[in-house]
């Protein structure tokens, strides 16, 4: 198992940094090329959400990203520590996992109901575009939209809203075949 950790200030400019790093590490880990865009977008959404929430509640606090290549012999991740939440992937090796932790207070979205794809109303009445960003929202759009995108992109996802912050854990299966060339290309 290999881990790359990144801590960023709650600044929009650093969301791109997080995206770039996550994509590079995912490519090196052996994620299928077709899934790299999903990783990039999902990490961007999670970080955008975290940055917006921090800007409202705790702008001085950093946001943490953990990029975990959990490939290895069966049971390796659980044997080496608790950095991989076993409930997310069942301790199953061979996955690339991203854990994004913020420190902004959060509540269970939608009373704990599972996230559904963004409900579309052609009259746009439910969209509050151009308005002031709500706490935890992303530039005027409901924070649930970003989370719905994450759910739509990640192969597995776990979102834990707590009073002292939210932990978004996402994972994708690794595709070790042909990863060497891709890793070399990532430089």
């Amino acid at each position: 198992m290999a881990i790359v950790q990144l801590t960023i200030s709650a600044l929009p400019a650093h969301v791109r940094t997080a995206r770039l790093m996550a994509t590079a590490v995912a490519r090196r880990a052996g994620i299928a090329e077709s899934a790299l865009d999903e990783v990039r977008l999902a990490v961007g959404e999670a970080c955008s959400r975290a940055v917006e929430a921090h800007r409202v509640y705790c702008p001085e606090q950093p946001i943490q990203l953990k990029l975990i290549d959990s490939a290895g012999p069966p049971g390796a991740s659980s044997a080496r520590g608790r950095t991989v939440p076993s409930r997310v992937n069942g301790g199953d090796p061979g996955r690339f996992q991203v854990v994004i932790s913020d420190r902004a207070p959060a509540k269970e979205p939608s009373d704990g109901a599972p996230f559904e794809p963004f409900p579309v109303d052609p009259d746009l009445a439910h969209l509050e575009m151009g308005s002031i960003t709500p706490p935890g929202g992303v530039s005027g759009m409901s924070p649930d939209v970003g989370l719905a995108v994450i759910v739509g992109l990640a192969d597995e996802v776990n979102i834990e809203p707590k009073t002292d912050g939210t932990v978004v854990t996402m994972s994708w299966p690794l595709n070790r075949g042909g990863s060497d060339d891709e890793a070399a290309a990532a430089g």
Partner: protein
Amino acid sequence: MDLKLDHHTQDDTEIVIVEGEIDVYTAPRLRELLIDLVNKGNFHLVVNMEKVEFLDSTGLGVLVGGLKRVRAHDGTLDLVCTQERILKIFRITGLTKVFGIYESVQEAIDKRKSK
């Protein structure tokens, strides 16, 4: 790359050319441009996204915001996009039902004028 914006008039339609990444950092610039265009009386917009390399929900929010503004004036905001990686986020969020998405600027203009 960063966000690059340009615009010009074609067939009574304001064409907005977007190049680069639209995210939480750059999206405010696109929002300002759309607001400025609408405030100057441009109510039929086509946003050409063929050179967009990245789009997240923040960018979607700005586009929806622009759509709401032009609709308030009985206007239109259509998109030009053929990139699967960009279209995917529109599908996930269901926004393909909200925006007119075309393969070329001319197609978007022709479609609007034929309505």
